[in-house]
């Protein structure tokens, strides 16, 4: 049997997913045995033009991590889609937008203001308030930069995705299991999340009882006991709403789940689910007290409930910051070659 072709690509993400792939340890040799790695910019020297020249559908498996923040990433997503038989949204950024997706609370201008104007490290060095320009004229011709969009999109908001591998980053054992599934042709129905179909509590060894929460604590405020459910102790543990598969790693080291594996099957909006569940167990009937419990214990609701999933949520982005298609409305002469 001829070897399969494997590609990995990295868009708007931190790079942790790339490292996570190496977490499969010696299995990487099995990967090399089974696949030709045809494109992996982080680890091998490949060029986009090489990929462009490949016949469509010639790559067997593409693990694509990162959300879509720029026109370049969007192009690459479309390119990898076209060239790959199976495209996997690899890790939380590609799956749900993850931390970069939280920038959807702002728009391009606000993000650039933070980075190029108000940032304490950049301000003195940028007195003329320079901003990245898609096209810059220089004596030698025109220089171009990818266009930075107002809104970060997930991979499946950009192109069709075959499978999702959740996690920030995905666990090595799950990566290996997914690769085995591809190798053995035992993939679940298209569109599935590869993993378990229940939530983190299922794997969490803590003792659970009926829930009544009088006060939410932030992690630095208490040292929880190691026996009982963290949520019952007042920590916002997202395990109740978060897909299992990680082995409940965080709760086992006395730290609440923050939700990187995203929602369980059939959940349309992770944050709304989690909020609805937590709201149900706040132990008060008095609206003012409830308001106080929430305001004191959860000062950053979006960061708490949508830490990983804002870009994939019903909300997707802040309306207050507009961002009404600023990216789309402008002509995008990105490729205007000099």
């Amino acid at each position, binding site marked *: 049997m001829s070897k399969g072709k494997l590609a990995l690509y990295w868009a708007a993400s931190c790079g942790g997913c790339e490292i996570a792939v190496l977490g499969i340890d010696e299995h990487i040799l099995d990967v090399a045995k089974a696949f030709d790695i045809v494109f992996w910019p982080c680890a091998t020297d490949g060029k986009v033009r090489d990929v462009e020249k490949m016949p469509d559908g010639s790559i067997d498996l593409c693990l694509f991590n990162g959300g879509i923040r720029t026109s370049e990433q969007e192009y690459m997503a479309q390119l990898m889609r076209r060239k790959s038989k199976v495209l996997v949204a690899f890790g939380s950024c590609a799956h749900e937008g993850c931390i970069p997706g939280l920038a959807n609370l702002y728009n391009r201008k606000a993000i650039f203001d933070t980075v190029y104007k108000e940032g304490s490290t950049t301000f003195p060095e940028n007195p003329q308030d320079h901003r990245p320009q898609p096209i810059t004229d220089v004596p030698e011709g025109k220089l171009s930069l990818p266009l930075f969009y107002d809104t970060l999109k997930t991979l499946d908001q950009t192109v069709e995705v075959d499978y999702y591998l959740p996690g920030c980053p995905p666990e090595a054992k799950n990566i290996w299991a997914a690769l085995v599934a591809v190798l053995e042709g035992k993939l679940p129905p298209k569109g599935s999340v590869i993993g378990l179909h*229940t939530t983190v509590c299922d794997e969490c060894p803590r003792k659970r009882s009926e829930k009544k929460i009088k006060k939410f604590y932030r992690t630095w405020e208490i040292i929880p006991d190691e026996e009982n459910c963290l949520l019952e102790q007042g920590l916002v543990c997202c395990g109740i709403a978060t897909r299992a598969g990680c082995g409940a790693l965080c709760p086992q080291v006395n730290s609440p789940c923050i939700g990187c594996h995203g929602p369980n099957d059939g959940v349309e909006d992770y944050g709304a689910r989690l909020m609805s569940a937590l709201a149900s167990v706040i132990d008060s009937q008095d609206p003012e007290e409830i308001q106080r419990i929430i305001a004191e214990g959860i000062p950053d609701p979006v960061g708490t409930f949508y830490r990983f999933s804002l870009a994939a949520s019903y909300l*997707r982005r802040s309306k207050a910051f507009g961002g009404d298609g600023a990216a789309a409305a402008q002509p995008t002469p990105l*490729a205007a070659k000099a």
Partner: protein
Amino acid sequence: MAERVGIYVCHCGSNIAGMIDVEEVARWAGQSIKDVVVSRDYKFMCSSLGQKLIEDDIREQGLTRVVVAACSPHLHEKTFRRACQNAGLNQYLCQMTNIREHVSWVSTDRQKATEKAKALVAAAAERVKHQRPLEQGFVKVNPATLVIGGGIAGLQATLELADAGYPVYLVEREPSIGGHMAQFDKTFPTLDCSACILTPKMSEVGQHENVKMFTYAEVEEVSGSVGCFKVKIRQKARHVIFEKCTGCGICVEKCPRKVVDNVFEAGMGYRKAIYTPFPQAVPRTPVIDTANCTWFTRGKCQVCSKVCPTQAIDYDQKDEIIQIEVGNIIVATGWKLFDCTRIPQYGYGRLANVFTNMEFERMCNAAGPTGGKIVLRDGKTEPRRIAIIHCVGSRDVRHNQYCSAVCCMAALKFGHLVLEKTKAEVYSFYIDMRTPMKDYEEFYQRLLEEGMHFVRGKVAEVTDAARLPDEQGSLIVQVEDTLLGTQRRIPVDMVVLMAALEPQADAKELGLKLGISCSMAGWYTERHPKLDPVATMTDGVFVAGACQGPKDIPASVAQGAAAAARVAGMITAGKVTIEPIIASIDEQKCSGCRICNNLCPYNAIEYDEEKGVSRVVAAMCKGCGTCVSACPANAITGAHFSNEQIAAELEGILWDAIADGRPASAAPDGSKAPQSTPVGAA
């Protein structure tokens, strides 16, 4: 295969057609909504001809789904479901949409109303395509009934059922049944003696072979649902062994500790630390008031134990939890009196000779603390002038907005008793005189003739600060006489405040246990204010008497009997239908996080420790959806309200947005991704 949908738009005479262009809605639905094969409008869909239209179309056109756009499903959902079932279509494949209460009755713009009706029809049509056939289940009805409250309403309900041959458990919080009626002297308008007509019923209940009474007991916990409730009753420790006590009363007689009786005697008289509330109490078994008993407070005495001929005193008795199973529950918990100190300008608690209506009742009662003599607080002086102030704490936005319903007639009764028993003059200060029931207005006429004085106006103040010589030593009632249009100061010796009836302090708490709700004022809410006055939104739980709103004795008795009739109907039918619209938990998805465990208002969720999953008990689930929306793992599905069905409904209601090329699922930033081109690919 595509569904075949039939749409039926009702005119409801002009109720709907007067504001909505129903022909246009039907025409539009037939043309624009996918899979619609029949779309009709009809004068009255609920008529037998209207129903026949649906049945014929199902048979002849092979409809697989039906939408009826008409009134509230509360009214006619059953009608149309039955029509579908008659024609062989599962009844849960019929969807009603409400274009009357939700559209025509609340709209003023015909065009907009028509557009809204279209959207609702589209929503129902999209939804109905995703509906699944469901089958109803049945539960047997336990013939036993729990009656909570041993006042006149509860007693009536108990007797009706017990006489019909059904077992009844009667729970009463006080040591004796009888309720407020046992405290009264005479009853209006006939002036028959309250005790004389009540006590026969009490002893009948006490001796009835079908009645098991729990007095000095409270409902602790209720689980289960119609047909099969499980109830835990807390039998408070009497410290008198019920089975041994003969009710001879020697313990009461010999008890050296006297206590002010704030309950039965309304603070006007004394009882002992071991007591029965009144001589005709049922049961006759006394209770020890441990807060006042010298043995319990100081460890001395035990006189009752020494004198008891049957050794029935048990100082170590503990509260006991008794479990019973019943098919239905009648709530008849009554009312409590408004606290008159909340209106300080009337002086209650500060001015000695200001009395509440309950105190005055006891004073008038021949068996009461004054032996029926109307005297001032000193216990001997007969008053020469008495003021009766109406609407104390009722019809008052600062306290209770409602009319207490019984006080006008009670005030007239007091007036009569004063005129009958004393030489005093009696004044009634009223806002409006309300005497609407049978023979009530005649009683008012009688009092007018007997010489009771009536002053129309809300009393501003009762004071002992005299301004004029003839006011010295009197209570002065300051009032605007709205008929004379003048301020008046009327000196009297005694003031009687007609305090409002209020919901019991723990009415909400009990309501929570039973799954029934309270109105803003705190009275239990009936299923329908006109057409279903004793049922509640919880099947198998009925309300009777003043716990549902202020009521006099005849109305309470009527409701007690009505509730009993409803229960008897349930028992006779033998089984109740269980709606299949319930929640279910996918054990694969459930992680056992237990978020849902204490949310269910019907206690229908149980946790399986062994498997580590939660489970819905189908017979108890009412399909309210609370757990469905709370489940963070999406493991709970509400039948008939699946995500798919709700999403389809939303898509239907947004049909015009979608038709405008604004798909509901478009990114909020409104942009299609720009056609990108390679970057840096040079």
